Structures are given as structure tokens and as C-alpha cells.
């Protein structure tokens, strides 16, 4: 029973009774106490460890909405606009032109052994390149004989080369669909817009079943990304969990050096409400120290930038038709009713405000049947909710996990195209949510945007778009509120605040180890605070050793 007392330059606890301390004692992977050295020595024999003497400790950061698939994506080639760090710590420069994309893929292509293997790039974002249209001719420069594909950052467009189209049987005349633009020769240009037209082609360019499924290596890579981001607990918000997949998650997270606790939600796809709730309730008892099970994710609508989110009147700014329901309202009601009875927590993806309203209405009716004073049903994204909706959510005991990264990555597009200035300014209304008493987390939705809670906090504090415009001055929150949202706030939304989220006696010894004090740096540089690594369950992970 070893007790280690760590000293640090500063320890930010998120415990209002002693917000800052100098030492934290760890025993059996848990926090024995936080305070001054003399407060802690009374626990008996101990070693004092000064390795963090020049570091700042925070509660381990918590990513409340991400996908472990971020780890698996790095098996493919990143071609996004922004610089991005891979699991091994290599920063891939953002690509700024189509020629850059072609050059990067060509370099990878040159090193591939199997001449028929597909080559897949991801993260391409032409909205930052004056919406340049990539064609199969561009990708044919990478290879004329190997299938090559590029998935856009929005997730709504796939570009393929001629070989990819040919393998899919689509390199022919006669296509008549708005999602398949044609060139002057009557053949597809290689740009495939919308999942309904690109899914049949996807498997030929590498998006096959193996790509879709979670794999052990991807999960390990995700753990590395977490350490680099200071994350000690991350949701995996939406897996089609089966017994086999749960076994895989269990075996990987039980590895001695697995550095993060994964909270794996069962998504509602492909399973009827009754079986969904019964199966998920049964998973709870399989939870371990590093794998939390027994929660449901429901997807109510699509995305705003894909025009598939459900919006209330007056709808999309550019006049696009309203989006799609991904769950039938009656099925949502059935899931809520059964989950409340079974005591299973549900997180629901809503992007549009109509989807948010449906969940509020549906949950209110279900709670009348099955009251639950602490359900903490959470809306994920909830990007367009207005004050009245947050007020209602607060009164009903709902939580929100808002997509603070969106302002940076898509804010300008939302302003100009999807929802227009007024609603763009109030998107992800963090300040209103807090005012209305809604427990709040903020997220990256990695791999949609990169994992990095400090960046996400920076997004909520500064609300800058990629073009440098402040979008929604009135919805900015303070650094303190933002840091709370990426620690205790996120823990509360997952009903794990009894175990994680703050540095205080009895909780898991989870720390983010920072090079600087996030309160001392200028708020506009919050995202640049260096991350040394993490301590998770008392185990030390230095990013430089990964």
C-alpha cells in the first residue's frame, strides 16, 4: 500500500472548497487527499515525488463526445486543411491546394507494395480552398491503376479516381442524380455527393467492413491521442456494441498500459427499442475500471453542414429542404420510456432545434409516466437550441454537451449559408445553457474535429471562426467555466462525477499534466498550453514516451 505525494507548481482541483493546492496524495490509484504537504503527511508512510514540481496539474480532462474511430482513421492518409497530430505525435501539415493533396497521396502511393490495394485520404476541406472542385483527373495523377478515394471533412462527399469508379461499375454514361455530377464527356467527375451515392463506391476505395468496425489497434491509437490531449476519460459515443465487440473493448482497455477510461455507449442503430434497452441495461455489470458500459446513444437527426439536421421554421438560410429524422418519433418515445423504467441513461444527438424540441417534448411525456429526479438525459451537440429550450431543459434536469469546436471549423459557413447570422451567433449557446441551470459539457466529436479539450475550451471562451471573426460575443464563457465543462461538467453528463472530474479525496487519480497554468495564459492562447501527459488511475503517462 504505497502512498505517493506529488508536488506541483499548481494543482487546479475543481473543488470549490480548495480550488488550488500544492500537493496531491495517491494510493491504490485513487486520490488519498489534496492540500498542502503537511495536510497529507498525516496519512502515514509515503514518498514525495517531485517530478511534476514545475508542472500544473488539473483533473484529467474528459471528452464527453468523441469516437475511438479517430484512432483507426490514422491508418489512412490525412489530407485536411488544418495541421493535425497523429497518435505517434507527428504533426501532419494541413494541405492548402489540390496539388498538395495529390502530392501527399502520391508520396504514400509510392511506398505501397500491393498494386491493387486502395488508397484512402480523409479530412479534405475545400470550403477553405474557395470551394475548389476536385475531379477524378486530379486523383488519377496519384494513380491510374489503384483505386483512390478522399473523404471530405464534412463526411458528406467522397471523391474517387477513375479506377475507383470503374471498380464500382460507375464509369459510364447515363447517371441521372444530383449527387453524381457529370463532366462534358457525360461521365461522372468523381465527386460523389451524399451517402446514398457514395456508399456503394466506398468499399472499393478502402471504406469496407473492416474500416467501419472498431479494431484493437485503433483503440490503442486512440489511447495515445488521449494522453497527448490530457484526456483520462473519453466517451465513445455510439458503437453497435455486441458481445464480441464488448469483449474486444474489455481486453484492450484491460491492458496494463492502456491509458484512458472509455465510456462506450450503445447506439440505437440496427436494434429495436426493447432489445436496445434490455441489452444495454445488461451491459452495466460488465463495466470495469477502464470501460464504462450501460448507456445509450440515440441519433435524432443529421448534421447542419450536411443540411440533414431537423430545423424549426424558418429552416435553412439558403432555402434547403428540411433535414432527416434518423429515429422515428414514436421509437424515440419508446426508448425513453423503457430506459427510464430500466434506469438506463440516454444521450441523444440533436443538431437542429426541431430535433431538440422533439426530445424535450418526448422526454417530458415519458417523465410524467416514469418520474426520475436524476435522469440526466443529455442532448449531444444541441447546437441550435434557444433560450426557451435551455430553460426547459434546465427545469427538466436535462444536461447538454455543446459542440464548441464548430464555431472555428464551420462557423463561417453557418453564418453565410446554413443558418444565417442570427442563429449562427447563438449556436452552441454555452452561456445561456449555464444561465438556465443546464449542466454543461463541450466536445470535439473527434474525428469530426480533432480531439483536444483545451482547444474546445478555447473555442467556447473565444468563439472565433477560422476567418478570425468572433461569432456570438454574448455566448462566450469564462476560462473557469470552460475548464469546468471539460472536467467536472463532462463527468456530470455521464453520471461519473462521483468518481472523476475533480481532484479531491476518494476520486480516481486522474490528472492532466500541463506545462503552463491555463488561468495565467491569455485566454486567446488557451489552446496552446503545453501538455506533458497524464496520470490515469495513478499510472503515469508521458506523451514523449508513447
Amino acid at each position, binding site marked *: 500500500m504505497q502512498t505517493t505525494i506529488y508536488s506541483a507548481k499548481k494543482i487546479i482541483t475543481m473543488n470549490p472548497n480548495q480550488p488550488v493546492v500544492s500537493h496531491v496524495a495517491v494510493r491504490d490509484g485513487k486520490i488519498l487527499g489534496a492540500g498542502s504537504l503537511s495536510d497529507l503527511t498525516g496519512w502515514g508512510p509515503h514518498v514525495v515525488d517531485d517530478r511534476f514540481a514545475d508542472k500544473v496539474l488539473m483533473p484529467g480532462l474528459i471528452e464527453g463526445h468523441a469516437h475511438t474511430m479517430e484512432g483507426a482513421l490514422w491508418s489512412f492518409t490525412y489530407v485536411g486543411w488544418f495541421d493535425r497530430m497523429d497518435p505517434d505525435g507527428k504533426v501532419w501539415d494541413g494541405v492548402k491546394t489540390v496539388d498538395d493533396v495529390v502530392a501527399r497521396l502520391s508520396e504514400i502511393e509510392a511506398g505501397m507494395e500491393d498494386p491493387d490495394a486502395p488508397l484512402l485520404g480523409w479530412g479534405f476541406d475545400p470550403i477553405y480552398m474557395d470551394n475548389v472542385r476536385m475531379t477524378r483527373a486530379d486523383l488519377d495523377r496519384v494513380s491510374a491503376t489503384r483505386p483512390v478515394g478522399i473523404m471530405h471533412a464534412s463526411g458528406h462527399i467522397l471523391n474517387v479516381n477513375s479506377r475507383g469508379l470503374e471498380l*464500382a*461499375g*460507375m464509369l459510364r454514361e447515363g447517371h441521372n*442524380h444530383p*449527387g453524381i455530377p457529370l463532366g462534358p464527356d457525360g461521365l461522372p467527375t468523381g465527386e460523389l455527393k*451524399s451517402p*446514398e*451515392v457514395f*456508399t*456503394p*463506391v*466506398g*468499399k472499393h476505395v478502402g471504406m469496407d*467492413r473492416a474500416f*467501419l468496425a472498431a479494431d484493437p489497434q485503433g483503440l490503442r491509437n486512440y489511447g495515445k491521442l488521449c494522453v497527448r490531449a490530457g484526456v483520462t476519460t473519453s466517451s465513445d459515443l455510439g458503437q*453497435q456494441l455486441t458481445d464480441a465487440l464488448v469483449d474486444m473493448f474489455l481486453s484492450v482497455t484491460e491492458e496494463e498500459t492502456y491509458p484512458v477510461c472509455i465510456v462506450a455507449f450503445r447506439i440505437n*442503430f*440496427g*436494434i*429495436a*427499442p*426493447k*432489445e*436496445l434497452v434490455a441489452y444495454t441495461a445488461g451491459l452495466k455489470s460488465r463495466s470495469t475500471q477502464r470501460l464504462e458500459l450501460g448507456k445509450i446513444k440515440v441519433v435524432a437527426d443529421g448534421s447542419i453542414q450536411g443540411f440533414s439536421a431537423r430545423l424549426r421554421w424558418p429552416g435553412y438560410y439558403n432555402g434547403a*429542404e*428540411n433535414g*432527416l*429524422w*434518423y*429515429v*422515428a*418519433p*414514436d*421509437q424515440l418515445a419508446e426508448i425513453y420510456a423503457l430506459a427510464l423504467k430500466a434506469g438506463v441513461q440516454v444521450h441523444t444527438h440533436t443538431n437542429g432545434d*426541431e430535433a431538440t424540441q*422533439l426530445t424535450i417534448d418526448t422526454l417530458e411525456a415519458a417523465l410524467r409516466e416514469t418520474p426520475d429526479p436524476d435522469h440526466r438525459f443529455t442532448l449531444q451537440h444541441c447546437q441550435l437550441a434557444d433560450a426557451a429550450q435551455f430553460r426547459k431543459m434546465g427545469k427538466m434536469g436535462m444536461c447538454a454537451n455543446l459542440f464548441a469546436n464548430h464555431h472555428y471549423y464551420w462557423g463561417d459557413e453557418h453564418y453565410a449559408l446554413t443558418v444565417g447570422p442570427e442563429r449562427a451567433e447563438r449556436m452552441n449557446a454555452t452561456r445561456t445553457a449555464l444561465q438556465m441551470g443546464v449542466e454543461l459539457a463541450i466536445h470535439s466529436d473527434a474525428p469530426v474535429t480533432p480531439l483536444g479539450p483545451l482547444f474546445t475550451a478555447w473555442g467556447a471562451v473565444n468563439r472565433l471562426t477560422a476567418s478570425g471573426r468572433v461569432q456570438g460575443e454574448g455566448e462566450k464563457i469564462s476560462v473557469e467555466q470552460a475548464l469546468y465543462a471539460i472536467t467536472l461538467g463532462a463527468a456530470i453528463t455521464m453520471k461519473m462525477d462521483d468518481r472523476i472530474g475533480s481532484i479531491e479525496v476518494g476520486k480516481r487519480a486522474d490528472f492532466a499534466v500541463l506545462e503552463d497554468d491555463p488561468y495565467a495564459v491569455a485566454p486567446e492562447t488557451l489552446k496552446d498550453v503545453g501538455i506533458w501527459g497524464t496520470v490515469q488511475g495513478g499510472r503515469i503517462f508521458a506523451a514523449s514516451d508513447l
Partner: protein
Amino acid sequence: MDIPVTVIGGYLGAGKTTLVNHLLRHNEGQRLAVLVNEFGELPIDADLIEAEEDGLVSISGGCVCCAYGSDLIGALDDLKAMVPRPDHVLIEASGVALPGAIATTVGLVQGLRADAILVLADADQVQANAANSYLSDTIDRQLAQADILLLTKPDLACDLAAVTDWLRAKAPRARIIPADHGQVPISAVLGALPLPARGHRPDAGAHGLFASHVLRPDGPVDAQALARALAEDPTITRAKGFVTGPTGPDLIHVVGRRHDVEPAATGHETGVVCIGFKGDLRPEALEALLAECVAPA
């Protein structure tokens, strides 16, 4: 020949599962493969099930059923690889899915042909659902995408004629067929081809509502023109069959206003089975259509 795929849409409770069970029970010798959206309570009547293994349900008559969840392409690939191949695939869409999008996807998969979109509407509930502000545009879009609209539970509607008129305005492309408890002949919804090898011939006449007529052109016809003419004829719900086209044998498919012509192998008996409502279907008018499509010698 590509495997025809029919997408079955409609909101929850419209009767999609009932229809699927009826078609499986009366499969008229066709090996049907049914893909349902979600695992859960088995949508197939227990007495039809022969075995279940690895998520694939085997059903009497050589039919199968499985769930596709979020991997429709993978499930379709599995069906294409089956031996023997299914004769026809039915995809039961989720209650809020737009069947047109699924048909688009299917149409791009090699070896498959998007045959038709069937949308089911509960005569008693469809107007109430369409009046629900969360659902109205979804229901409208589903109905508008139908090639064939099956009006289910007609006995429960207080004013069937009014519902039918309302649907006709919502689904101008569709042929509307009443289907009490899913009971429609398979030939009317999935098409009919003689399958002598399995000892069966289509028999639309067995169902009280429908009549059939077989067009037997003597010589070559303009297959595209004939398919188009049959699709434009409102008395025809379904037509399917082999003709001698300008460049060789062709297979014609007509479902509502959707038509398709694909090259066929030689050796098939020439003839197009046309199915429509009894009373509406006028053989002499169909023969006149055919006469106009005879290829110039």
C-alpha cells in the same frame, strides 16, 4: 440478369411487416431475400422460420431474412454471394427513412437493379401522421417517392374514398392498391415472370382485385417505347416480360410509372405479363399499344 430490389417504405404501423410476411407465405416459387432495418423481435411469423444462424433467418421456400443495421452495402453483398441467388430482394426501410434514397443506393450497386419503391399507408392513420408537425414533411416525401402505394387497413378508414383521393394528390406518380392485411398478390407488387423450372406460373387472377393480360408480340418491337407506353398507361400496375428488341432479346420491367429495359439472354419465351385492376385493364387497348411499338421492318 441483375437481381431486382424492392424498397418497402412507410411510417411505423403502416403494415410493412405484415406485407413482408404475406409475400413470404405466398412467394409463388420466388426465392425472396428480406432485409430489415433492425434486429429485435423477429419480424417473421414463427411458422415460416426453418432455421436461424449468425443473424440469417432461413424461411420456407428458399427465402431468407436478415437485418442490415447501418451496413446496407455489406448485407447486399452477402445476398449477392448466396448460392442459389435470391430471385428478388425486399428492403424494409425504417419508419422515417426516405425510400428513394435507398433505391438510389441500390441502383448503384453492381448486380442489383432498383425495381420499385412500395410505400405503405395506413388508411386510418396516414392523415393523422401527416398532420403531426414533426412528421408531416417526412410522410409527404415518402408518399411522393412511391411507385406503388399500398393502402393498408382499408376496413378501418371511415371514408376510404376521401383517403384515396388525398393520397392520390400526395403521390401523383404512384399506382394505389388497397391491401387488407397485406394481402396483395406477389405478382402485382414484385412483378411476374413465368418460372416453369420451379413449376409455377403467375396467377394474378387468383386475387379478386386484379386481372392480367399477356402481350405476345410476333416480331421485333421497340422495347424502350413499349416499356414507356406501358408505364404511362394508368390501368397497369405492373408489367414484365421478354420481347425481341432492336438488337436482341430484352427484358422489360414496368412498375407504376417507372420502367426499365435490360438486355436478356436468348431462349426465353416472348411475352409481357401486364397486371392491373380488374375492370380497368382492357386487353384490346394494350394490344393497340403494342401495335404502335412494333419495330419497323
